[in-house]
């Protein structure tokens, strides 16, 4: 008997037994198993395996297991209470969504606003006043006189009030 043919047939026996082969291949397996003793025995063993499984009693519990299950079943929450509040699972989801929205808001709106104010630097009063006075003069000179930066700065220096002089 051709060993290659036997190997090919053996690979197909389980599918053949389960009815998974097309007609042509099923006929080939049938013909080979009929003339090859070893492959025929293998097919018979497969059929006996199926028969053994069919004859095997399923393992049955020794007692009724339902009472033990029933006493451990927690009452299920209805999907929505009569006054319309979602059940806990939905409430949890809503809370999770709200938390995520708040986090996004905090990151995109609230924190940038806070950062725009910049760090609070406390300058000595004198420096702070001088800087304000300088800014005022510079801006006024630039805007009202139409002068350039150099001229505006010269004008400020020339018109500095005595109390603001260093």
């Amino acid at each position, binding site marked *: 008997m051709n060993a290659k043919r036997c190997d090919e047939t053996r690979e197909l*026996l389980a599918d053949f037994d389960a009815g*998974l082969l097309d007609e042509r291949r099923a006929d080939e397996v049938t013909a080979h198993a009929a003339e090859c003793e070893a492959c025929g025995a293998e097919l018979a063993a497969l059929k*006996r*395996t199926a028969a053994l499984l069919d004859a095997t009693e*399923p393992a049955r519990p020794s007692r009724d*297991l339902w009472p033990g299950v029933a006493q451990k079943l927690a009452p299920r929450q209805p999907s929505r209470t009569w006054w319309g509040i979602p059940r806990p699972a939905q409430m949890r989801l809503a809370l999770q969504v709200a938390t995520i929205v708040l986090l996004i808001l905090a990151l995109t709106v609230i924190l940038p606003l806070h950062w725009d104010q910049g760090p609070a630097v406390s300058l000595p009063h004198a420096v702070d006043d001088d800087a304000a006075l300088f800014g005022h003069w510079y801006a006024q000179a630039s805007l009202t006189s139409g002068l350039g930066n150099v001229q505006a700065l010269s004008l400020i220096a020339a018109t500095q009030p005595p109390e603001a002089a260093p």
Partner: protein
Amino acid sequence: MRPSDSTAVVARAKAGDVQAFETLFRDHHVRVHNLAYSILGDRTEAEDVTQRAFVKAWEELPRLREVAAFAGWLNRIAANLARDVARSRAARKVPANHSEPTGDKADQGLLAEERDAQVHRAIGSLPEHQREVVIMYHLQGVPVQEVAEQLGIAQGTVLSRLARGREALRRKLAPYVEQ
């Protein structure tokens, strides 16, 4: 039970109907027990796992989306619990309390019992997807079409898994099937 009826019962249980859940328990508990038994080889542990699997299924049922695939989903819960017990037992190095018959081997009843125990152990060694179809089709006598519907898979897939499972079992059960 027709699959459509089964789906309706699962939907009712999902909504909190305990009576519907008891119907599911009655329909599926033997299979679940067999799955657990094939993994654990111990009837008492298998009974405990069966009960825990149904309690867990009740708790998780509201999150089950495909009610038609209830049986496969329940199988996975039971198999996971059984494997946890087996792992815990292995960690404690406690041998499985296989329900092996003792006494006069000539007694046909005892021989049959021993053979059944061997078959269950062999089934327990199969990959999960083969084990569940073998138990449903051969041990419980569920037709292929219904196995496919209960597990949410194609009939061809059921047949293919049965073929592979039987192929493996033919080798594991050689003393019983070779002449």
